[in-house]
């Protein structure tokens, strides 16, 4: 099935094997995109979507390794063609208070959440510039502007994506390429579950909507920004946080 609204465009979702990334990949697939996903720890299964949709194309890739990023793009381009919509979802946490932070833990989070986004995006937009079309969606976090004790590395990386994305939006606007940022709040994923049920309950109680989001609720916002309906949206930061970050 090739949805007329997407024309079977090619999307690549990094970190697409679980959590928000997998939900975004599934949603794009349902919307008629041909979707490739990079994965590092768990290969996504099943790959088939609803009747007639194109199966997900999984590519093993550690986004912090430049050669693997190049190989992943080569594989996707050979399978589907150039990437027209990029969703950068791959991300990690490694929480500790700053006074206990080590250079290694700091760098690991910045490498994955920020430097890898620079690397993946750079590779993708080279083709988008030529095609005079592109959609880039970066997944930040409400933590970027709220801050979070124990997450200086994570918060710094997620806040940096906003500056990166907006600068890139300006660089590429003349080429019909939009760059936008989604800032999720508390989302029911493995990353949040790892905090423990007590901390999750405390977080949920801070959310005006009173609950965590499902990954699919974030995927909806990502899919909108990747669609032709969002053709006049660029440089935006779209909070999808149940009201948690209101006013920032």
């Amino acid at each position, binding site marked *: 099935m090739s949805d007329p609204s997407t024309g079977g465009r090619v999307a690549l979702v990094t970190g697409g094997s679980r959590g928000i990334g997998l939900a975004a990949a599934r949603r794009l697939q349902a919307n008629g995109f041909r979707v490739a996903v990079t994965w590092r720890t768990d290969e996504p299964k099943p790959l088939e979507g609803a009747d007639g949709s194109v199966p997900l194309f999984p590519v093993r890739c550690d986004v912090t390794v430049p050669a693997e990023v190049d190989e992943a793009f080569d594989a996707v381009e050979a399978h589907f063609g150039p990437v027209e919509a990029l969703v950068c979802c791959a991300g990690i946490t490694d929480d500790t208070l700053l006074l206990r932070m080590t250079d290694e833990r700091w760098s690991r989070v910045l490498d994955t959440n920020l430097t890898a986004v620079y690397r993946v995006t750079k590779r993708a937009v080279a083709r988008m510039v030529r095609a005079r079309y592109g959609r880039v969606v970066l997944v930040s976090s409400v933590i970027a502007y709220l801050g979070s004790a124990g997450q200086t590395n994570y918060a710094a990386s997620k806040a940096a994506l906003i500056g990166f994305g907006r600068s890139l939006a300006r660089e*590429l606007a*003349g080429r019909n390429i939009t760059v936008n940022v989604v800032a999720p709040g508390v989302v029911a994923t493995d990353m949040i579950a790892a905090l423990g049920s007590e901390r999750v309950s405390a977080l949920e109680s801070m959310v005006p909507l009173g609950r965590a989001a499902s990954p699919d609720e974030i995927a909806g916002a990502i899919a909108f920004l990747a669609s032709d309906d969002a053709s006049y949206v660029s440089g935006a930061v779209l909070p999808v946080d149940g009201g948690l970050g209101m006013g920032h």
Partner: protein
Amino acid sequence: MDNDATFEKFKTCAVEVLQVPEDKLTLGARFQADLEADSLEVVELVMALEEAFDITIEESELDGVETVGQAFEIVTSKL
């Protein structure tokens, strides 16, 4: 490849990337003032030339490059 053939290939890249008529691509033409190329178009041209001629052009080599002739000289120096 002789100089004329190289320049023809150079021109093909430039016409495609910069979307300008071929006759405007003289050696003395200035990218910004005469060809109305923005900075991203110049980067696109460099990438296209790298691919077409199988060469690598460093960022530092582009300092002060304003004209088609200067860019062409960089390409020919690498062949």
